């Protein structure tokens, strides 16, 4: 399923938090210059895919946790990238097919992919290619997301991908289309009520190398931590009684809750992750175009396409989200 690396992403998003705590500030200044600019043919992954630790936030690009979600101003001008897609007559989108409610196979028709991410991809394709666009979905494993974009195996990746500085050095992101955060998932009847001391003496499951694991290392509230390869494996452990609660990001936790009516999200998210559409750094016009689509997607309050999609896919298990995060622009 590939949430492991995704969770890891959260780690790098949080990296600056650590830095803010006064650990890394100097180190970052020393380590950064490497990644400045946008290399035409970037060397093979400079930054390893699972950024485990809070290392080297690329400050040379001016990226910090506060402005990481900033993107280019929207525009519907056709540049090279948009024209290339139009000429090909199809949009190639990297998606997940195992992430419940976000991108997964329709149980009634397994050849079809459905979910919140898929609806967004469709809206983008319609805007570029017209009312009945030809979309090619490529199921990209988590560890292939950045390479797929950089090697142009896909035009974009729409796959619950967290925006962070480390990734921004390698790919370009749209404005954020969803705000999530680490959260606790436990059985409804459980005495656990949030990421707090109610965890004491409990067994907590989290994905290996994930932000959840880092959080629990910092503060475990007296709980025993068990790690598994993938966040969904935690639901298995929870159902089998091998774990009492799960710590994972709220969007994915919602996917778990949707598969098991006896569990629910507990308390508030205790971190922030912004999801964005990833594209090749050279495709500036495409980034602007997607941001334009997102503007329209957010527009209309309770009647906006975004809210429709949220109501359809996520509201039942991830209630209380009032709307999309406000876009931030860097230019």
């Amino acid at each position, binding site marked *: 399923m590939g949430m*492991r690396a995704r969770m890891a992403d959260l780690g790098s998003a949080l990296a600056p938090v650590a830095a803010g705590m006064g650990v890394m500030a100097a180190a970052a200044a020393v380590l950064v210059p490497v990644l400045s600019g946008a290399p035409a043919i970037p060397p093979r992954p400079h930054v390893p895919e699972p950024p485990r630790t809070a290392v080297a936030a690329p400050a040379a690009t001016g990226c910090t946790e506060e402005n990481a979600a900033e993107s280019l101003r929207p525009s519907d001008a056709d540049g090279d990238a948009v024209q290339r897609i139009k000429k090909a007559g199809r949009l190639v989108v990297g998606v997940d097919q195992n992430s419940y409610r976000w991108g997964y196979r329709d149980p009634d028709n397994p050849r079809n992919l459905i979910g919140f991410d898929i609806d967004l991809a469709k809206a983008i394709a319609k805007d570029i290619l017209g009312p009945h666009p030809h979309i090619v979905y490529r199921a990209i494993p988590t560890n292939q997301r950045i390479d797929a974009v950089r090697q142009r195996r896909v035009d974009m990746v729409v796959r619950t991908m967290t925006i962070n500085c480390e990734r921004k050095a390698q790919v370009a992101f749209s404005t954020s289309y969803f705000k999530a955060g680490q959260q606790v998932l436990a059985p409804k009847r459980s005495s656990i009520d949030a990421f707090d001391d109610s965890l004491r003496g409990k067994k907590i499951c989290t994905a290996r190398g994930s932000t959840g694991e880092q959080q629990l290392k910092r503060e475990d509230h007296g709980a025993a931590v068990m790690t598994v390869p993938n966040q969904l494996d935690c*639901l298995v452990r929870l159902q089998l009684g091998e774990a009492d609660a799960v710590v994972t990001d709220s969007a994915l936790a919602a996917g778990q809750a949707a598969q098991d009516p006896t569990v629910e999200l507990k308390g508030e998210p205790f971190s922030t992750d912004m999801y964005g559409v990833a594209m090749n750094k050279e495709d500036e016009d495409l980034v602007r175009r997607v941001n334009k689509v997102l503007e329209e997607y957010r527009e209309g309050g309770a009647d906006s396409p975004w809210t429709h999609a949220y109501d359809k896919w996520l509201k039942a298990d991830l209630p209380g989200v009032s709307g999309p995060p406000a876009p931030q622009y860097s230019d």
Partner: protein
Amino acid sequence: MSYPPTGSAAPPAPPPAPEPAATGTPGAEPPPPSGERAVWAEGLRRLRAAATTEPGRLRIIGAVLAALVVLFGALTAWQVTDRSAAASDVLESSQPLSRDAADIYRSLADADTTAAGGFLAGDRESAASRKRYTDDIATAARLLVRASANSQGSATAREEIERLNNGLPRYTGLVETARMYNRQGLPVGGAYLQYANDRMRTQLLPAARRLYVTETGRLDADHDDATAWPWVALAAGVLAVGGLGWAQRRTYLRTNRVFNRGLLIATAASAVALLWTVGGHAVARAGLDDSIEHGARSLRVLNEARIATLQARGDENLTLVARGGKVTGPDQRDFYEVEYAAGMRDLAGTGQGSDAAVGGKLREALALADDEAGRAPVRDALKNVREWQSRHAEARAENDRGDYQGALAKVIGTDRPTKESFDKVEAALQQALRHEQAQFRDAAEGGRRALTGLAGGAAVLAVLAAAGAVLGIGRRLSEYR
């Protein structure tokens, strides 16, 4: 298993009969004993007295010869019975147990592979695939009961059997849960299947493997017992024949008579018994060694190859179930793809071309097979492994391109899928296993047959030889009356 021993253990009993008769001569009239030491002293005194006269000496010689011959017969019967029992154990106990353990091991691996294949097919899983899974589990459970009944002696075996008995229902529970979620189209089904596979990979299969190793170790031990030379019996035989020869030479030197019919018969009977023992053992050893060399060893390698095949197939299926969700190593490679590649390497070596391979279980099996009928299926398996690898590469390329349906079709579809290659490899290995199993049986059977009747025969010959010795010496003795 140990019928021959009880059957032929009886004969050695009669020989001791002549013994009292022979030893009775020197110390026949026991004085009223005043204590053990006194008896000994008295016996020694009489013996010394007897040795000073020729008749006395002859009596002693006769007694010693008869005792030697009887000892030889008894030792032979005893040691041969042991070996023939061990040979029977090889055939009827340890090899079947080792085969059962191999079948448990294989059934479990097969169940896991079949479950993953069925999961991928989803609601289109064939009835045959379901049945195969159910049969595998049933076979494993049945053989575990049998193994448990037959492995009284081995604590290791019992421990592993218990572990397997505990783990199996848990495993099937996980697989059924995975199936149920999969039918509902929920991704957590895949997580359940991976957890089931993880249990199988890290607990059940290692336990099954240890059980297999234990049972196979017992086969080796039985084989070693069956093929050990009966040195003690042989030494006694040489001593008996030597003693008889010396007695005849002595008679010849004293009387100038060349033949003493009794001693001659004794010598001939002892020599026949000795030669029979040597010959029978040589043949039995050859057969049993052959069964190990060309049967058991091949079976072992082929069984391992089969497990590697099944596991590689399971991993291939799981690459499509996990969809890149489980990664390994610093470069975050797909866990199941890495495992698949390792399995294939184990099977067919590192080479990629049709014959470039060096190493690998199949090469090893090919080298061990001693006839064309054994080599042909292994060669066939090797060829299909190559085909499988090249088809897998295509499927993998589709998957990396993001065409999941295309990759799925190449793995479990109908147009040249990797499943076809896997099935062919499986079938070829099965054929090779059948052949080697038959070879093993033939050779071991031949080995055991060579020991048939030897224990009883040796006993009868010993009695005959003892009688001859006593008669021969008696004839000489009569010349002094």
